[in-house]
């Protein structure tokens, strides 16, 4: 899957999970930059991403993500 495609699909998932229609993400976006991105909504986000891209993540992958860039790279590798 192309990176641009990953980001456009990922943006839609973020907007849906965090309920913010104008939410924009960059590779450097972290949990601190998004209101309400906490340990619980992180799991909801991972579930939504798994469903949207048809991929699965391991415990270490879920816990080890530092920013959106790492998440997108991981998705690109798996999808």
């Amino acid at each position, binding site marked *: 899957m192309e990176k641009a495609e990953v980001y456009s699909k990922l943006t839609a998932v973020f907007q849906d999970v965090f*309920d913010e229609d104008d939410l924009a993400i960059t590779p450097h976006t972290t949990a601190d930059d998004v*209101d*309400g991105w*906490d*340990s*619980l*909504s992180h*799991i*909801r986000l*991972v*579930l939504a991403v798994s469903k949207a891209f048809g991929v699965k993540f*391991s*415990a*270490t*992958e*879920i*816990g080890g993500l530092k920013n959106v860039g790492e998440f997108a790279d991981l998705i690109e590798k798996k999808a």
Partner: protein
Amino acid sequence: MSLTSPLFFAFLAAAVIAFHISESVVYRRFVLGAANAVFIASYLSDVTQVLPLAAFLALGYVCISALHLRQSTLVLAVGVVAILCCYVFLKRFSFFEVFGQLSFPYLTVGLSYILFRILHIMVDVRSGDLAERIGPLAFFRFTCNFLCFVSGPIQRYQDFSTMDGKAAVQLDQSVVYAAFSRIATGYVKFVIIAATADYAFTFLSPHLLQPTGLPLLKLCAVYATVASLYTVYLYFNFSGYMDIVIGIGTLLGQQLPENFDKPFSARSFLEFWQRWHMTLSQWFKLYLFNPLVMLLMTWLPSPALTSYLGVLAFFITFGVMGVWHGTTAVFVIYGLLMGAGASINKLWQVACTERLGKKRYRALTQSTAYIYVARGLTIAYFVLALTCLWVPELPQFTYLLARLGVAGVVGTFVVVAAAFSMAALSLDLIQARLRIPITLSAIQGSEITKNLHLAGKMMAIVAVATLLHKAPDFVYKAF
């Protein structure tokens, strides 16, 4: 081997010197393995005492090997159940006394942390995060690393494996100085601060459980003091221990993970747990909380339920963590109190966000008054909940609660919270105003000042250790 014993220093010096005799990986791994064996042997008076530990390790190794052969959920489930049953049996949990116990005395130190290491390897082998085949000797070096044997930090195998005798160790002047400085700081915390707090705690705490009662006000004052002293003792004992082992680690080519990150600066209970005993809380987050929340959310996908599922997961996670800490019913109460703290914190966040909106809530949490009130409440809650660790028997625990009553507990909580808030505010104000004169900061980094500082710490350690006449033991060894 006690951390403050001459034997430990001799052992340490031998291990560090032996390690640096040769750069051969095989040789260094042999030294590390032998050091672990000697360290464990120092706890034994008879060779049979180590057999249950050896059996536990062997079972763990069999499970991991089975998972390497077949990465199936069934193998993982059977393995986890077998490991947990073996652990619960060896730790002699009071709830499972009916299953009987081994009739001879044996070593239980280290089991609690070996459990986490084995379970983490099993889960990661199953998910494919850990593809490397682990040999039996590497398995021993990882699970029984003498630096982390008694009480962590809980390292991941992947991080351990990148060092494990093969990482190049450049012991130049600054590295060695930093290591010794860290070790000395650890001993200052351990031998001076924690031991003094323990001394006062041991002196005052019997008053709380004496049958001839103190009047309620005095009882609350004593309770607040005793509970605070225990917290000081626990933190400085544990974090001092971590400074010592992390410092030694750098001399043996091991970069161990940090376990504390200024926990008393936390502005919420949830933040506190990101700063306190970090490797334990990260382990629980990774291998219990996250999978549990994921499972619950898959069953009940409505976003409106998110915080309630979170509350349930907090209670289960902290409940398990509580039971892991000790084998009596009071530790279940400890877990539930921690679960309640995390849940109240989460529900408060959700309620505030709904009421004020995200931006206004964020502004509120950044106001000075809110910060210090929140810091006080966070620490006071933790300080009182820790009572479970120093009154671990249920009859005494209920007796203390009955004597304090609701008024006593609430009163003590308010007093501790207010005292901590004021103290934190004053300290921060003083720190912000303190300016080190330019002339002083220039000589601050000089060799003489650095070494004077280190020597001063050592002198203080010797002076206080002589005064107290007591070599403190490591508190977390009991858990």
